[in-house]
Structures are given as C-alpha cells and as structure tokens.
C-alpha cells in the first residue's frame, strides 16, 4: 500500500452554508482529485440531510463556490428521506433513553 505523495488524492476543506443568512461554516474535509469532484463529494458527504444551500471547497489557497443553479439537483433529492431522522421511527413511550 505504499504510495508516494504525488499519487494521493488531494485534501479539500469543506464549508457549508446551512441556510440563507448564515455564514459558510467549516464542516470537515475530504479527498477528491479536483474541485468538481470535491463539490460533488461534499454534497453527498456533508449534506445528506439537506444541511446546506451552498458549499465551498478549498484546496490550499483556492476557494471555489458551488453554482447557485445547482440547488435543485443538489439538495431537493434529500428532502424525501425522512428515515434519516430519529422522529421517523415509532418508539413506545415506555421505552426510555433512545
């Protein structure tokens, strides 16, 4: 598994604006080969629960913002996955600590 430095997928820092009116917030990082893939991966990794309306990916000193026109295709498909939220499941009142 020894791979030299030049063969590694570069690391990108990810910033997500959770809703209009708020700042982009750093949420973590991920590996991608370029900015486009970093954006797509960020969408899949950091906004699985519709947490974002805009994503920035930053590689070293570069900053790239996602296109506003992407919003529908980026985020709406996550709106119909309520089973990712705890309130989707029925747990009887007698059962505590869950």
């Amino acid at each position: 598994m020894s791979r030299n430095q030049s063969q590694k997928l570069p690391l990108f820092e990810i910033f997500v604006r959770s809703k209009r009116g708020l700042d982009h917030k750093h949420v973590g990082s991920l590996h991608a080969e370029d900015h486009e893939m970093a954006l797509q991966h960020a969408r899949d990794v950091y906004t699985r629960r519709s947490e974002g309306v805009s994503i920035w990916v930053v590689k070293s000193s570069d900053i790239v913002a996602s296109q506003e026109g992407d919003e529908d295709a980026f985020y709406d498909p996550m709106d119909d996955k309520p089973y990712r939220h705890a309130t989707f499941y029925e747990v009887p009142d007698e059962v505590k600590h869950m």
Partner: protein
Amino acid sequence: MPQDNPTAPMDDREPVFQARIDRDEKIEPKDWMPEKYRRTMIRQISQHAHSEVIGMQPEGNWITRAPSLRRKAVLLAKVQDEAGHGLYLYSAAETLGATREDMIADLQSGKAKYSSIFNYPTLTWADIGAIGWLVDGAAIMNQVMLCRTSYGPYARGMVRICKEESFHQRQGYEIMLTLSRGSDQQKAMAQDALNRYWWPSLMMFGPRDDDSPNTQQSMKWRIKRQTNDELRQRFVDQTVPQAEYLGLTVPDPDLHWNKEREHYDFGEIDWDEFWQVVKGNGPCNRQRIAHHVAAHEEGEWVREAALAYQARKASAEEAA
C-alpha cells in the same frame, strides 16, 4: 508549527497545555501538544474511523436482502452514514498530520485495530435489528461522552455524528419490536440475535478499568470523560428494560437489579474471547480485512486515472 522535542525531559509548554485542558478549553490543530497526546489522538480517532468503515460490512451484508423496500432504503442510508462518519473521523485525524493512506495501510496490515464487535457475522435479518439496537446503542453512549473530548476537531466530528446517529438505534429497535410482535419464528429469530450480540456488545466498552492502563492518562487529558466500566454499567442499566419491553431474555443468569447500588449486577465477560477477537482471531476478522483490501485494490485503477486526468488537465491549463 513548533514540534515537541523528544529529547527534552519535560517541556515547559506542557503545564500550559494541561492548564488549558483543566479549564475545559479545547485543543485545536495548531496548538502545541505533547507528542504522546498527538499520537494517542491519532490512534484513537483512526481506530474509531476504521470501526465505522469496517462496520459497514456486517450490515451491508443485508442491503440486497432487506425484507421490504422501506427497510432496504433505511439500511442503505444507515450504512452510507457509517461511511460518512468514517470520513469525518479520518478528516479529524488528518488535522493531526496523519494521512488517509497511512491509516488505511495500518488497518490493512493489522497494526491499527477497530471495534471487535464487527468481527461477528450477521446471519439473519434479526441481527440487523440487534446491531442497530445494541451496537449502536453502545456506540452512542461512548460517542456522547466524546462530544466533550478535549481535541476540538474530534469533539466537533462527534457532535455531528451523534446528531446523525440518533436514527440508527431507533431503526434497530423498531426491527426488534416488529419481530417480537410477529410470528413464533420471528420471536425466536430476535431472541437468537440478542443471545449472540449481547456479550460482544458489552465487550465494546473495552477491558475492565483495572486492565486498562491508558485510562488514567486519557482521563487526565480529558480524551475520555468516563471509564470503560462506568459506560458499560450505564449501557446495561438502560438496555435491560428495553429488552424486557420486547419480551426477550438477556442471556446472563447473573443479571439482577441491585437495590442498594441502584444498578444492575451482571455476569463476567468472557475475556479470553475478547482478547482473541482483538488479536485478530474472531469469526470474521480475516474476512473483513480481505473485503477491505479487495475493494481498495480494485479501486486503485480508478484513483490512478482520476489523478492522471487531473495532472493532464493542470499541465494543459499551465501551457495555455
């Protein structure tokens, strides 16, 4: 970034570091930290990441066979979350100077460990319920504590993970509830899953405090905020009534409520089994690593192609 000098007997920055921890302030990536703290953090975070990633396999084993389309979507979403959580954690470890490649190499060589629970097989659909209920239940207990851990990126990753995992345990319990209200065959399936997963779940909290030499240092650095035995006791206390509600029997003849302690007393874990699994001799250790290696190797040409394409594009842009 100032680095710890291993030849210095005692760095005078250490008291400042400890004082910050004692004030419950977070340590951030660029702060000075003792080399041992850095190494401990990398080890713990990367092993946590590996647990999420290897944990995809036993549950992933049932995605294509889930009994309804709703269950299939839920299970796939859950396993995908685990991949995401592994990624958050690798990302946190990378702030300490570790690389994803090195961490994966350590996982595949056996140098780095992951939670022993994922070395048990998922044989029936009920095992998916038991894992969500028990394994995620135990993991959440540990992770809630880690939301307050002293290393900032780890703590923040944990907050995100805990928020997302709230559905994981519930979906598992919901499966168990459905089975326990179902046919005799389904009830038996649920009981069998509890029988096989109960003890390995208790093992998830790690060795007894007496046998856990790192606990004291970890408590002092506030990496851990509670000991293994404290967390294990709390898990038993809250899980036993949940099992009773399901009408299932916890497979421990020594289990009973201790009125004076106001806790459940419970039997002794089979520590030989625990250490065997940790050493790599559990039912599925070899299978799990082989699966990870196979996927990683099969992905090699894809990763190489992505880099080659990117390099070509960059040089074309430079030439233009």
